[in-house]
């Protein structure tokens, strides 16, 4: 655990990507199995121990420290694990304490129940110094949030043993922590893991935002970008699975898709809910709001399946019938996908159509004219692009619809987490429920924590501190005087909000220091922007 804690501390304080790679690679080379496998899993995906939650840590500390002093400390630090690591009281007797190894810690954490955690976690913490406690608590509660992405961790593994990161990605999803087969292959030169007959996730190819780029339509093909969730449908060894963009297995949420693919394949598409209501064209897809009803459910009722039937609008084919198509140019993959369509029942599949345009200017006109609410924008794919994991410059672009804008008033601000823990960086804003000069009130319509620069953040933070009217723990209510121009992708009816509306992807577009709050928009103005 000490080496792991040292690595975590070094990563926290390192900015340079190359230095982070070097640190992780050095750790992976110098640490035995299975410790390094657990460490890599923790860095790349985070581990999950159901019995250990942030609230568990809070409760343990509140038993050992005055709750008021705990809360003041937690608010100052902005991170429960770090606060607890600093405040954990040293054990009473000064007995010999051997720190656990990473795998001992993982085994102990795995075995803990909601009851036993209250005695077993303290025993582990007592064996560690503050750095060790920080590493343990971060490991125990999942997300490390220390500026290491899953991709970076895998790249470090590739660098440590001089193997290709694409291969690491490919095997990764077929294996589980602590990845003994992966290290046997990468570090000890043994045969690569066999994933041929496993329904494993293959990393998605992603697109860059188009921004100012203009492309030549002779080289690129255009497709609609649908407003659902990107999924990968995998069938291998007589089993079908559905994966989300991050590689999470969401098969249980969409059982209707597990019986309809009857040949080995890996398909890339957009998961949508069928329905003409809520903005969809006849026979087409409903808005994201309808799909929302289906997301995150572990079991699905018959009623849900009937009211919100899911289907996949296909974009691409990665593998089928034992053939790997990923090295082929997009045009040839598209031909193969079209050829597969008769084998895919149209109750659950259709093909994302290619948008024909002779010129970029013509394409721009088509994009402007798009009315279907299930359309998020356009995708541009170079006709000769292979299917490569991740984002590669020049191959695929996304060209979203222009965002909608509305002027809102800042109502509440909350302290951020991590790097922003000393700033009020999460904002709740509202619109007027009538004429503000005739006594109308603000109703919250959304929350945003992005879209501003660090300089602007400092200014808003100062504004919040100087205009606080009420405090609720980490939340401040402010004087209702600051106007934000908020950008968002769409707005829908919602029972969850008092205003009856919910925005999708709201972010701060501009800060209107100049605009009086009573000139901000009313709820009706926001309601008028519903595209359904």
């Amino acid at each position, binding site marked *: 655990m000490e080496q792991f804690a040292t690595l975590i*501390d070094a990563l*926290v*304080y*390192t*900015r340079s990507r190359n230095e982070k790679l070097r640190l992780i690679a050095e750790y992976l080379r110098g640490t035995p199995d299975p410790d390094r496998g657990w460490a890599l899993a923790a860095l790349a995906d985070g581990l999950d121990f159901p019995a250990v939650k942030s609230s568990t840590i809070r409760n343990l500390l509140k038993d050992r*420290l*005055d709750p*008021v*002093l705990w809360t*003041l*400390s937690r608010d*100052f*630090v*902005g*991170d429960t694990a*770090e*606060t607890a690591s*600093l*405040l954990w009281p040293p054990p009473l007797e000064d007995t010999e304490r051997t720190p656990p190894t990473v795998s001992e810690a993982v085994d102990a954490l795995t075995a803990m129940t909601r009851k036993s955690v209250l005695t077993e976690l303290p025993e582990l913490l007592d064996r560690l110094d503050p750095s060790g406690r*920080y590493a343990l608590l971060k490991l125990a509660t999942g997300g490390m949030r220390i500026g290491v992405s899953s991709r970076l961790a895998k790249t470090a593994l590739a660098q440590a043993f001089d193997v290709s990161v694409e291969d690491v990605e490919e095997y990764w999803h077929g294996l589980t922590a602590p990845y003994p087969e992966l290290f046997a292959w990468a570090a000890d030169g043994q045969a690569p893991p066999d994933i041929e007959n496993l329904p494993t996730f293959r990393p998605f190819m992603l697109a860059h935002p188009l921004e100012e780029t203009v492309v030549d339509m002779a080289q690129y093909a255009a497709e609609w970008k649908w407003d659902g969730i990107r999924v990968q449908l995998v069938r291998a060894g007589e089993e079908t699975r559905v994966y989300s963009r991050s590689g999470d297995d969401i098969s249980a949420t969409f059982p209707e898709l597990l019986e309809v693919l009857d040949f080995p394949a890996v398909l890339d598409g957009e998961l949508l809910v069928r329905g003409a209501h809520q903005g969809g064209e006849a026979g087409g897809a409903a808005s994201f709001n309808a799909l929302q009803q289906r997301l995150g459910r572990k079991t699905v009722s018959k009623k849900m399946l009937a009211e919100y039937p899911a289907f996949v609008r296909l974009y691409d084919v990665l593998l089928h019938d034992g053939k790997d198509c990923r090295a082929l140019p997009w045009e040839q993959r598209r031909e193969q996908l079209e050829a597969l369509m008769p084998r895919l029942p149209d109750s659950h599949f259709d093909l994302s159509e290619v948008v024909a345009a002779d010129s970029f200017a013509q394409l721009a006109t088509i994009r402007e004219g798009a009315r279907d609410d299930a359309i998020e924008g356009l995708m541009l794919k170079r006709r000769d692009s292979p299917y490569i994991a991740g984002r590669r410059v020049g191959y695929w672009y996304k060209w979203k619809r222009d965002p909608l804008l509305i002027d809102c008033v800042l109502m509440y601000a909350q302290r951020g987490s*991590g*790097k922003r*823990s*000393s700033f009020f960086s999460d904002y709740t804003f509202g619109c007027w429920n009538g004429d503000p000069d005739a006594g109308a009130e603000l109703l919250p319509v959304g929350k945003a924590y992005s879209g501003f620069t660090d300089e602007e953040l400092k200014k808003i933070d100062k504004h919040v501190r100087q205009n606080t009217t009420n405090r609720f723990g980490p939340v401040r209510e402010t004087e209702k005087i600051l106007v934000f121009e908020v950008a968002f992708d769409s707005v829908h009816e919602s029972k969850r909000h008092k205003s009856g509306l919910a925005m999708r992807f709201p972010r701060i577009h501009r800060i209107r220091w100049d605009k009086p709050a009573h000139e901000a928009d009313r709820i009706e103005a926001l309601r008028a922007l519903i595209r359904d």
Partner: protein
Amino acid sequence: MAAPFSWIRPEPHGIHIVPADCWVDPSKPVDRALVTHGHADHARGGHGQTVATPETLAIMDLRYNTREGATPVAYGETIRMPGGVDATYIPAGHVLGSAQILLEHAGEKVVVTGDYKRRPDPTCPPFEVTPCDIFITEATFGLPLFTHPPIAEEMRKLLDRLAAHPDRCVLVGAYALGKAQRVIAELRAAGHHQPIYLHGAMEKMCRLYEEHGVALGELRLVADHTKDDLRGHVVVCPPSALNDRWSRRLPEPITAMASGWMRVRQRARQRNVELPLVISDHADWGELTRTIEEVDAQENWITHGREEALLRWCQLHQRRARALALVGYEDEDD
């Protein structure tokens, strides 16, 4: 007879000693000021008369040209003021010249600590516990998570990192008054006798310390040297210069910062610090609470920092306390 302690009043701009019509560490110009130490949030220019230790007066003169109206009081010395108020200056262990001020009137005793710490510091005499009725204490690091490690440990971290990268330099951000000189003196005590390079803004204060008998070893100015000269050396600069254009002239600096705030990882990350050194000239939580116990005053007034937590601690330990809302004090880069 007047009500007990009615002669001393906390006001937003400082502590007012009514019969003498003078102020302790006022944040606006007054006719007569008693100043605890030279940090900018305690010592300001523009007062008619300034009463402070000779070292603090020298520091103030360097910063604000305040020779006029300067009244020196040595440690242990008492000065009688109008209205029958006596003021005694007692070491606070914070920075060169820093003092607690013991105020006595009509048999009642009040101690104003200014800023203080309880750890040994080669650049100033140690804090002395002074019995009193009202103890006015700072609370900059007044949260239980603040425990400053022994400074020798932090020096070891710094020197190990320096030795591991002989072709780079370690750039230490340190508050120009006090922290910088303490870090240099502690480096010497840890056996580091190489020249130490200074940002131009540190030079005069270091010279002032040396004139007051604090040996700092060989100091050189970064401006007089080439990039190559600096490889393998320690460079000291004000915290504001850490991520400044100025640091581009240095050979791949390893960015360090000497401050009590470095105990919190995210604070270090916010400042792009690669090597956090937890070194503070303020009392940590353990020192604050121990000092309140040792002084054992009838009442504690808490100012200047995280009053809320220390107030809570006093409440839990059945000690009378109140928080003072003074303006103009800021968290020192400390």
